[in-house]
């Protein structure tokens, strides 16, 4: 089972992942992994296979003003595209606001 938990920073995503999906290995802060992968000169989409079978948390970083720095814009785009790809194959996608889960794909409750 693969689960993506997205939302703003400091919303309790990791704690929620541990509570809702204790059997899954937890990969935290996918957005930071994307930044490191870009810094190493590699395509962040390479991260996708290793995420399968995990509960993955990622900050929803694309909801701000478009950065003037092209590298920062590329980073946001890469996080967004990777999250779209991961969400497409995930069994559940949970959007976390104030520690409260919204099951936007799969899960136990659909909004």
């Amino acid at each position, binding site marked *: 089972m693969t689960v993506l938990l997205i939302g703003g920073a400091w919303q309790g995503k990791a704690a929620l992942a541990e509570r809702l999906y204790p059997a899954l290995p937890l990969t935290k802060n996918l957005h930071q992994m994307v930044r490191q992968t870009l810094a190493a000169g590699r395509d962040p989409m390479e991260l996708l296979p290793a995420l399968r079978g995990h509960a993955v948390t990622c900050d929803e970083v694309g909801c701000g003003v478009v950065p003037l720095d092209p590298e920062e814009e*590329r980073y946001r785009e890469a996080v967004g595209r990777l999250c779209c790809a991961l969400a497409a194959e995930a069994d559940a996608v949970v959007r976390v606001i104030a520690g409260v889960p919204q099951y936007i794909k799969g899960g136990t409750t659909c909004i």
Partner: protein
Amino acid sequence: MLILVTGGAASGKSEHAERLLCERAACSRLYLATMQPFGAVAQARIARHRALRAGKGFDTVERPLGLAGLTLPHQYDGILLEDLGNLLANELFAPEGAKDAAFGSILAGIAHLQDCCETLVIVSNEIFADGLPYAPETVGYAAQLGRLHTVLAGRADAVYESVCGILLPVKGEHTV
């Protein structure tokens, strides 16, 4: 019919907006592009959107601003306006933009587009949640985009937010 599709960067909103339009506009479809092709990132995005639209029967018009004065060859079943964020930036900051009159100019342009088609789908951008300090002109830009969203959402038959490629109903139809 007016539909607003918003979402963060690379959240899959374009794909959903196209699908929503194609489901409603059976035959004649217009893609109205507002992005100016300045820089490698813009050109890459334009190329990506062109590839997404390929083979779907869209006419394409590139019009960065001044939509109220746009003359189209005929009525369309559907028009896809992509995107509101670029349109506002062009009206505010481009030399030939409406500047202080940008807000009203954009609303007049959208009303004109609605007269030119049965279904208008507008793509826009969620840029309101990073909480970072910006220069006054950027804050003013974001504030005007937020106000446009609220006005247009009030008029829209349906509003959606795309999140990680998942389309969430915000208002109106729940036919996703």
